């Protein structure tokens, strides 16, 4: 992305919910810029405020503080009809798909076009094209009750694309799907992003969803943004406590690995074509015990971490550290009190 053009900008955004006897802060001082054409992930634990955040982006929830700029326009300055018009440029998909149960797949896709006032014939043509794009040409006249979860989400994606939006907001869009279907839906979103240049914003609580498709990620915790950055950067070197918790979620197991001298080796994409551990063992002539490994291939590069137990003999340990340093392999010693 050379000259990046912001598509959604959140400035000092805050949202409070007023209940009978107290105010609940759902979002606090959120500053975020999402650029045209990227796949942006927003991850957080449930209750962190991520669903409210995505609803502020299309003003389904009106923020109580700050501004939302969509394509340079301040949404709060728009008149009602202008806001409704602006929403047609932002497609949205949901965890529970939210299809009209009394309409067929084709009619569901026609729905946003009817709202936008597109002539019926034109709408049908467009809906048929979209069904083809999402690979459901054989389900034209099927009702949602006759479709699987993945198929329903495909219809929902086609529906969200109907009005040619520049952004598509995905609110936990894969959380109700099994891993295989999740992958195929994420691939479809990636394809849409690449082919049509549509900005995709993904809200999720699952790190693997972010890993799979996102270019950049924001981590939200307790109503605030804890960390923002390129996905690889955040994934490899998480700074905030919550980021570490989300990424190294398996780390809780490490505490149960008895023994001293544990070391976490970080795979940051540079060391992918090299058998790192095997070479190290051969070179240093000392065995290591692999306690934990979690590595993934992302865009042809290896990312992840491995926890190994080093020998008790100090000299061997020194050799291993020297080897890691010499080969510029990032590592850190693991203490028993890691979070």
């Amino acid at each position, binding site marked *: 992305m050379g000259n990046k053009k912001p598509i959604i900008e959140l400035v000092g955004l805050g949202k409070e919910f007023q209940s009978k006897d107290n105010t609940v802060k759902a979002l606090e001082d959120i500053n975020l810029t999402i650029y045209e054409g990227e796949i942006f992930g927003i991850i957080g634990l449930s209750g962190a405020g991520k669903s409210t955040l995505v609803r502020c982006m299309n003003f389904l929830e009106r923020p109580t503080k700050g501004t939302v700029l969509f394509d340079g326009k301040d949404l709060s300055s728009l008149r009602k009809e202008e806001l*409704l018009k602006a929403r047609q440029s932002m497609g949205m998909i949901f965890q529970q798909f939210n299809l009209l149960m009394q309409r067929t797949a084709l009619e569901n896709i026609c729905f946003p076009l009817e709202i936008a006032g597109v002539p019926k014939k034109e709408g049908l043509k467009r809906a048929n094209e979209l069904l083809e794009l999402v690979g459901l040409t054989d389900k034209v006249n099927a009702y949602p009750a*006759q479709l699987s979860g993945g198929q329903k989400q495909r219809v929902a994606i086609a529906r969200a694309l109907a009005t040619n939006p520049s952004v598509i907001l995905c609110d936990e869009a894969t959380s109700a799907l099994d891993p295989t279907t999740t992958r195929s839906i994420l691939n479809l979103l990636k394809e849409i992003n690449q082919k049509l240049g549509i900005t995709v914003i993904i809200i999720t609580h699952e790190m693997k969803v972010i890993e799979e498709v996102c270019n950049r990620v924001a981590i939200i915790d307790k109503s605030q943004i804890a960390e923002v950055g390129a996905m690889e950067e955040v994934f490899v070197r998480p700074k905030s406590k919550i980021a570490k918790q989300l990424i190294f979620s398996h780390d809780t197991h490490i505490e149960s690995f008895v023994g001293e001298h544990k070391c976490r080796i970080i795979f940051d994409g540079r060391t992918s074509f090299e058998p790192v551990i095997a070479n190290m063992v051969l070179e240093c002539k000392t065995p290591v015990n692999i306690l934990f490994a979690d590595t993934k291939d992302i865009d042809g590069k290896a990312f992840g971490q491995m926890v190994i137990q080093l020998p008790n003999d100090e000299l061997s340990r020194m050799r291993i550290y020297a080897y890691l340093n010499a080969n510029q392999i990032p590592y850190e010693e693991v203490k028993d009190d890691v979070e």
Partner: protein
Amino acid sequence: MWNETVLRMVGVGILETLYMVFVSSFIAYLIGLPLGVILVVTDKTGIAPKPIINKIIGTIVNLMRSIPFIILLVLVMPLTRFVVGTVVGSSAVIVPLILASAPYIARLVESSLQEVDNGVIEAAQSMGANTFQIITKVLLPEAKPSLIIGSAIAITTIIGYSAMSGFVGGGGLGDIAIRYGYYRKESDLALVTVILMVLIVQGIQEIGARWMKHTDKRLH
């Protein structure tokens, strides 16, 4: 006693009952359906919250529903005379029938519309749908099966109300049952009219259930 006159009377009774019930149901829906929609839409969790309007309509509906039909029948006689020109006969009974059933229908419609998944409404809002579009393209079509079964309940209730009209000479099967069965103690004629009413109620309920099944795409 089963001579031609009696048979003709029963036949006319059936027709009068159907006339009263269907005309008043139709007009009551013209009033009750929009009221039900307004109740849902203006609710504080609705798509266009208007608490004051909601409170006023809700109170009027409750007030109307708490008046027993037999009292209403007498209370609205001046209005009936003004609208229909008379207070006896089937047409005259239509006025109190509408007044009694419209608020009831409003509540039935309200409860049907409340069943529509909020997520679907939110999806429509995310597409830029306005309030009117959400009502006509989401709320009513998605609630259609429930509205159909609700209308069967409403019509059968109105049949029950219409039977009371016999006390004011409103005609129909209820009138026959009261005149012959209650005043003249001709219990077999009363029994026949009651059976006919039961059959009409059963028939409408059955039609409603089948129509709903046919309409509801969630069941296929």
